[in-house]
């Protein structure tokens, strides 16, 4: 593994397998009464969140604490540019306190990659703008692997058809997932109206080996797993789609589509959900929904990532 985790591109299939094996061990810890492991005792992790986040920040914080690292949260809304301080000055100030890892969320694409060039600490990208969210992709793939496995043993995603639906243009979850899932041998189809597909996706999908579609109803019967992505209502004012009603009819996981899907196909959502917009309550709460398993998998996967970046001197 690299020193940092900035992009899902940084991880080979072997790296992912190693991370998952450790995550599975960490996952068991969650069921113990005493959850702390001593692995990162004396190490310091800063959760540097320039953008609001509840689940990702607390997931990283719990992961660090269960590994006995000292974790500190720093949150600041808005870009440092708006405060007159350069991003470099902001992060150098924090990194100079002697931290071992910086877990960073920033509203600007590429911010974590830039920061990794300025600081000595390991940098974990916890979401950069509309670029990537590599630990989310890992936890999604891990949750799916558990689902397709057997009694806690991880199954393979090789040949599984995973369908991602939603606002692809603005989704870092989509960008990281498509990389990680294809690397694990899954067949990926992304579905969105043309206005919510990123520029150049035709050439991108053909070189990266995933499929695109505007027609959810055509794709859904062939899905082995469905991942619904959050659609922000403010996108309507940008002219990306006319009304939420029209979006739901075209691309929502409605009760009717849940019926088409059948009871076996797992449903994922990275949260936070817009119930009634991209996902009906019946689908979110269905027995096949992995949404809460994703959250629990998130802690295990992030423990594994922090462990491998910090305890093993960067080697898996």
């Amino acid at each position, binding site marked *: 593994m690299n020193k940092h985790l900035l992009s899902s591109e940084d991880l080979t299939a072997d790296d992912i397998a190693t991370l998952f094996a450790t995550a599975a061990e960490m996952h068991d810890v969650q069921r113990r009464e005493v959850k702390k492991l001593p692995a990162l005792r004396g190490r310091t992790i800063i959760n540097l969140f320039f953008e609001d986040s509840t689940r990702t920040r607390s997931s990283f914080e719990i992961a660090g604490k269960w590994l006995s690292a000292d974790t500190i949260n720093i949150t600041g809304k808005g*870009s*440092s*540019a708006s405060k007159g301080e*350069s*991003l*470099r*000055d902001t992060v150098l100030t924090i990194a100079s306190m002697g931290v071992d890892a910086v877990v960073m969320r*920033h*509203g*600007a*694409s*590429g*911010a974590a*990659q*830039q920061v990794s060039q300025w600081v000595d600490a390991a940098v974990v990208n916890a979401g*950069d*703008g*509309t*670029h*990537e969210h590599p630990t989310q992709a890992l936890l999604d793939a891990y949750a799916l692997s558990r689902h397709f496995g057997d009694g806690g043993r991880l199954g393979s995603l090789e040949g599984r058809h995973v369908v991602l639906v939603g606002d692809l*243009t603005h989704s*870092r979850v989509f*960008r990281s997932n498509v990389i990680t899932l294809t690397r694990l041998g899954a067949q990926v189809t992304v579905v969105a109206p043309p206005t919510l597909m*990123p*520029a*150049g*996706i035709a*050439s*991108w999908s053909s070189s990266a080996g995933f499929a695109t579609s505007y027609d959810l109803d055509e794709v859904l019967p062939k899905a082995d797993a469905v991942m619904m992505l959050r659609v922000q209502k403010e996108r309507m004012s940008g002219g990306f789609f006319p009304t939420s009603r029209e979006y739901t009819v075209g691309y929502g996981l409605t009760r009717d589509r849940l019926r088409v899907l059948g009871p076996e196909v797992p449903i994922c959502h990275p949260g936070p959900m817009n119930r009634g917009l991209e996902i009906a309550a019946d689908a979110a709460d269905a027995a096949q929904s992995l949404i809460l398993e994703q959250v629990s998998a998130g802690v295990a996967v992030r423990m594994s990532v922090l462990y491998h970046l910090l305890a093993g001197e960067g080697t898996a």
Partner: protein
Amino acid sequence: MTHQPVIVRGASLLGEQTADVLLVDGVVAEVGTARVDAPSDARVVEADGLVLLPGLVDLHTHLREPGREDAETVRTGSAAAARGGYTAVLAMANTSPVTDTAEAAERVHALGRAAGIVDVQPVGAVTKGLRGEELAELGLMARSRAGVRVFSDDGKCVADARVMRRALEYVKAFGGVVSQHAQEPTLAGATACCHEGELSGRLGLPGWPGVAEEVIVARDVMLARHTGSRVHVAHASTAGTVEVLRWAKSLGIQVTAEVTPHHLLLTTDLLGGYDPTFKVNPPLRPAEDVEALRDALADGTIDAVATDHAPHARHDKEHAFVDAAFGMLGLETALGVVASVMVSSGRMGWGDVARVMSTRPAEIAGLAGRGDQGHGRPVAVGEPANLTLVDPAASVVVDRDDSASLSRNNPWHGRTLTAAVRATFLRGTPTVLDGQLVEIGATTEGSLT
């Protein structure tokens, strides 16, 4: 004015005939293919193997004074220009305060004269405060001592069609030209920073589609036709813009255009590492666009190369990519880029370089017909002695620290460029000799630093 005479011996005029050129009292006194006798006190510049060009003229420079003297001053920008072979630069209006009054224009003009390294010709804003709403005092700027002829809201597009129409009509009274930063803001807003395409999709950067430039260029050439006015397209960056220009020129519409050195060589894939050094507006484009721009420059569809020299303090580039400042340095490397891309490949000769970097820019800016203050004139007896001496065989590895600019946002750092400026003469006075700046005996008067 008294000058030490200069005799340039054995230079190749525009890369063709070899001659001696004598400069006396700011003008070219003699051009001879046989040996020219020089006064005994003349400075002798041996120019064997060197190419003599008319002094370069930059239609598009940002000097940052007044307002951001930490990034560049009129004096430091002038020095960078001279090192790049320039004898005149047009200083864009987006300073703080904006050059939108006669007083502001005269101040920039005076700062330039005080520095005395190149002629600094201010560009006037088209609209007050670059807000795109009401016309700035175009006529007063034209009548001022600065004699402004080029007007631009550069950095921002004059997006309102009615305002653009009125500006085009109004400047006809004094032979002005509107230089348009073509960026339809509803298609490429303030955060747009990466050519819209597969890379912007993958990187998650706000896309800046070529069509946002092309629709404005298309609109503006129709407005120029309707008003019978002259419009200039700043930093043309796409193949689509080239198509529109070619069509408009074929109809006789009065449109001219410039291309930057960076759009002739650098491509959008450089943004892959999110390095804000490569953040520029309009953004770097794919290779297909670069190729179309080279063709257009060679065949005259694009009239001029202009640097869009945009110095920035280091901390203004050390933000996240979308938050970092737009722009890159260009004055000291422009000739090398043009030589590397266009001359080395045989697509242009040195006469063409003189056309696109001196003659046409001077004509567009209204600097050609200013008598002894003129620029872009032929190397001929009686003409102002604004000249640039180039070593066409030099190979230079660009070092960002070897610069007269106050800023270091140099996208060419580490690249090898062909050709180097050996000497620059402003009205017969050397500003650069042996590739080094000459200390000009100018005062500190008028400069804030």
